[in-house]
């Protein structure tokens, strides 16, 4: 994956839950109107609905544009949740 000149990389913790929401928001708010966001779920093992809601917020911030949002290294155990949340278009294959 080529680096984007205006890219924000967010590495989610093992437990991506409500408590990490403010930090997550702080990180993605660093981007602007053309920023490309990359969310790395490589270490994440748990997602609650607050986290999925925040991911939907991130989709809105990226203008629902798969070119501006990529979710990578998602564990297979979380794929069902991500699919239900409508995030499948943003999942990047390794």
């Amino acid at each position, binding site marked *: 994956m080529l680096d984007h000149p205006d890219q924000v990389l967010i590495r989610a913790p093992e437990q991506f839950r409500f408590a990490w*929401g403010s930090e997550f928001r702080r990180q993605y708010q660093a981007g602007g109107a053309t920023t490309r966001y990359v969310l790395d779920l490589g270490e994440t093992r748990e997602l*609650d609905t*607050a986290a*999925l809601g925040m991911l939907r*917020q991130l989709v809105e911030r990226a203008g629902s544009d798969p070119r501006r949002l990529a979710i990578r290294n998602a564990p297979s155990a979380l794929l069902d949740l991500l699919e239900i*949340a409508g995030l499948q278009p943003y999942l990047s294959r390794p």
Partner: protein
Amino acid sequence: MIRKLIARVSGNPRPARSCVLAGVAVAALLLGSPAGAWLAAAAAAGAGWLGAGWLGATPAADLSPAADGEPRGPTPESDFAAWSLQFSQEFDTSRSSVARVNDLVQSGVGDLGRSLSEIHRLIQGQQAALQGVLENLTAGSSEVSLRTLIGDIAMTAGALNGFARLVIEVSKLNMDVYFEVEDMAAELAQIGKFVDGVDWVAKQTTLLALNASIEAASVGVAGRGFQVVANEIRTLAQRSRQISADIRASNVSLQSRVRQTQEAARQSASQDLSALLGSKSELDRIRQKMGDLDARIAGRMADVHEISAAIGARTSVAVRSLQFEDISRQIVGYVDADLRALSSTLTRLGEPSRTSGLENLETLSRQILAEERAGAPHLPGQTELTAGTIELF
């Protein structure tokens, strides 16, 4: 009875010779006929007397005339008449036996045919019932059909998916609220800092007013006007401090309510979907199993159809094979006609006008057999019963 009769014949050489000659002549006629072989076999198997009695039980030496040329015992003509009568009676007995065999075969085969038809009907009913059950389980219109249940499960799983999406969407809205309130809390904190600044200004103003009052008092009467102004400034400062206190109190109250709102948003937004997803996975698993079961039942239905077709074919073969009864019955009728001819021959040979004409035996036998067979059915030559090979009478 026939064996006893043959024994009697073999014990009287002269009559025996006549009788053997007549029997051989008639048997030769029969063996030369289409039914001869069958009759010989039937007679040998059923009565067992034609070859064994006539041809085996009487030695050739016993058939020669007496040395002195004189007849021994009764005359040949009278003996022949008596034996002919007895043979005729025995043939009638044999015909009666053949008729009973015919009746038994006809009755047995009839029962067998009806049983086969009933079995076929029952199997068809069983197959229809089984097929109905399988169809109801798979694609029937019943509300409990397997495919209906699979559809219901799929619909339920879809509803769970929709519900999960709704929960996630609600969580997003709650997070929107949470972050908005979080921003509001930050602004409230900023307002608190502003109030602190106003408070500091009011405090400094009060000090300033106090100093001004002191300075006004030190100049005496000339400072009275300034004293009034200093007092008013101090009053305004106190009023300002009171307003700041009110704002701070409101700010604290607002911050408390903001925290409550944030907590409500957090509780509403943060839900564990694992139980919901577990239920959905279980439904998917059940649906998969029911789909497999549906496929297996469909396979069994194909087996049922195949077995049904095979049963139908085998039943048809069995029913067709029962036509041997018809053939056998006609063959027996033919044998009966032969026996009747033999009986008639012997009876007519025993008549007084015939007893002296043994030389006419062959001619008479041919005549009677021709008469009897004139009305007899065609004897089928069929030896097997396969499809398309049934010989009609």
